[in-house]
């Protein structure tokens, strides 16, 4: 028991240490991200002292970029499950290890979600009021209480699955199916639930006809399953470039299929929404009119939504055509899809729900500099977290860090240039690559 704990602590310690080791590109990247995180912390400290008046929000538009980013990122987190489905349901061995990268992305995304929700609270010091029994938890009445449960549950699920698989790989042990397969299947269903519950936050408000529509839930899922895998496609190519980890093009093309279908559904649902709003033209159309065409002289969101629609439609065409089998065009489509959906979910969904106000008042919203710095800080924190997760998990998956080479054998993983050369290691990354290539061709994947 004690030995097991000691082993685990040693494992965590090695993971922690390697997060601080890398080449100049790594330090540069982490350095820039840290700067943005610090700027974000500074901006948030200002907000904590002076209140949310430092943002651009008002009583009329009482949710802004914080909740917009939160909504987008819940979708990204849910989409990590999309990688899991082909692997476990269709038994696609090619994607097995990539599942871990997808789930680590989900963890980073959920951490960002929790951060965005916390910075939006007027009294974050009172968060304990949300804890059941200790505080007063309005479950099952309030959809926000459901969201608290499903988001934290999803975080724990993914941390468990990734942690267990990585620790087993570290120990050189075959993971026991009972400790992860059931959790994986739960995670698939749970992923759909986190985004449905988030959609229901908006759908359940009768006083906001723009949101109170059955299409919001399906649209959320369709756009999440477009943007999420698109992000993963881009992330995997970066991993391929920066580390020696081998990722086949086939994996990327499988993900492309997911993005393709989801984007088609997403655009179809958009078409449905636009028809329903503008063909019937009831007075409930006000928010849509404001968004697409401007209303009563206010038109701040019009350029944004049309840009998003153009991006989405162009991305859809690129994805559907065989030209997107080439990575260059696939990447363009992914970037367009991610940006288009980010705009749609944020500026295209959250803000127009508040304009006009329930009493017909037109008040627009623009985020302030302070608000933007907080957002950038949280995004940087998310990238930082994901980079650290990858920095820890890739050597484990490659076998560079394992129980077998504990102790004396961390020769080429740590130390500065002189020490490494003294030990006969050239460049840390090259050594990792050589080891990894050997490990992969030598034994093959065992799962």
């Amino acid at each position, binding site marked *: 028991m004690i030995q097991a704990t000691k082993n685990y602590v040693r494992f965590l310690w090695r993971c922690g240490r390697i997060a601080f080791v890398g080449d100049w590109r790594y330090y540069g990247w982490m350095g820039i991200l840290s700067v943005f995180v*610090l700027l974000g912390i500074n901006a948030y400290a200002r907000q904590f002292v002076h209140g949310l*008046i430092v943002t651009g929000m008002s009583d009329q538009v009482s949710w802004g970029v914080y909740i917009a980013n939160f909504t987008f990122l819940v979708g990204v987190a849910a989409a990590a499950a999309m990688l899991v489905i082909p692997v476990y349901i269709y038994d696609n061995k090619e994607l097995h290890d990539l599942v871990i990268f997808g789930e680590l992305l989900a963890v980073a995304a959920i951490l960002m979600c929790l951060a965005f929700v916390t910075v939006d609270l007027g009294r*974050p010091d009172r968060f304990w009021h*949300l804890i059941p029994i200790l505080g007063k938890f*309005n479950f099952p009445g309030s959809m926000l209480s459901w969201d608290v449960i499903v988001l934290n549950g999803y975080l724990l699920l993914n941390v468990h699955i990734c942690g267990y698989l990585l620790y087993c790989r570290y120990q050189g042990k075959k993971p026991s199916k009972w400790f992860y397969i059931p959790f994986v299947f739960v995670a698939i269903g749970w992923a759909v639930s986190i985004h449905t519950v988030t959609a229901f936050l908006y759908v359940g408000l*009768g*006083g906001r006809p723009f949101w109170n529509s059955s299409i919001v839930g399906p649209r959320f899922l369709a756009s999440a399953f477009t943007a999420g895998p698109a992000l993963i496609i881009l992330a995997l190519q970066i991993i391929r470039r920066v580390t020696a980890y081998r990722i086949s093009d086939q994996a990327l093309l499988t993900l492309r299929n997911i993005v393709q279908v989801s984007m088609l559904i997403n655009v179809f649902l958009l078409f449905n929404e636009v028809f329903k709003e503008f063909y019937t033209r009831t007075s409930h159309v006000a928010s849509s009119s404001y968004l697409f065409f401007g209303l009563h002289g206010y038109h701040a969101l019009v350029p944004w939504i049309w840009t998003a629609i153009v991006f989405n439609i162009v991305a859809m065409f690129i994805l559907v055509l065989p030209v997107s089998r080439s990575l260059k065009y696939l990447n363009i489509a992914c970037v367009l899809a991610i940006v288009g959906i980010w705009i749609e979910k944020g500026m295209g969904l959250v803000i127009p729900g508040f304009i006009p106000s*329930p*009493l017909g008042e037109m008040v627009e919203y623009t985020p302030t500099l302070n608000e933007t710095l907080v957002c950038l800080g949280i995004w940087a924190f998310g990238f930082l977290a994901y980079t650290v997760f990858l920095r820890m998990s890739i050597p484990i998956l490659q076998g560079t860090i394992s129980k077998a080479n504990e102790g004396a054998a961390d020769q080429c993983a740590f130390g500065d240039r002189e020490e490494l050369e003294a030990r006969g290691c050239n460049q840390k990354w090259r050594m990792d690559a050589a080891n990894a290539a050997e490990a992969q061709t030598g034994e093959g994947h065992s799962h």
Partner: protein
Amino acid sequence: MNRRNFLRTSGVLAAGIAALAASLSPLRELSDFSSAEEFMQKHYKELTPADMEKVLARISREVEKQYGLRPHVKDYKPMDGVEFVYCLNLTRCIGCRKCVHACVAENNQSRDPEIQYIRVLKMPHGSLDMEKGDHNYSPDMVPEKGFFYMPVQCQQCKNAPCVKVCPTRATWTEPDGITVIDYDWCIGCRYCEAACPYFARRFNWTKPKIPKERLNLNMSYLGNRPRKQGVMEKCHFCIQRTRAGRYPACLEVCPAGARKFGNILDPESEVSYIMRNKRVFIQLKEELGTSPRFFYYFDV
């Protein structure tokens, strides 16, 4: 680890800590942070009478410390057999907005930025479409020909969406029909503000500022005691007045006699008479199923 590594690591660590401390420097200006007592305080519904006494004493102390004046803070309980209802006569309302300002004077709202619970809409004849309403009218004289005026405040709904969505149950409906907020329990998520179909709820975007000569010292726990930064507030039918048998401030100040308030469970009350005898009365956005306790009627 050799000396160079040690120095390098400690240098980096020190620089990191210094950078973090620098980024947190605005926190030095933090003054009004909640005391341990306030932080641990239970929800209103779980406070025993002894707890409540301590809480009221704390509030009293805080007000005295901030404004130099001693208030009278009480926890008014609902009266038995009472359900409050508000009736507003649209034939009489002249749009003078005296109700808006009387409310602010009575309920210790922040004056900078100024929070107003009541919003008066100038509506064109023949339409109840609020998109056609003007919130910012300011002519020399009211009422203006061809328009009528509709003041909107919290409708104290029987089926309140704000109560349904609050994740911490910081807002709820009391037995006498008033939707109240426990200002010491609210976490400021503003979900209730998104849910309300009547734009009735207000948020304290910053620390409220009340000039001390304007402070109303007759305070109640659930009503008009001064609020803090980061919590919600709204019309509570002047709970410190109505639970003591008086009228809300908006009604008392109305020069046109457009406002009527009382106990709907009492068949002899003014509001019961109105509901029995006026042919047309409206609940705003009735189709949403909120079932407001606020009725607009005309003199026919």
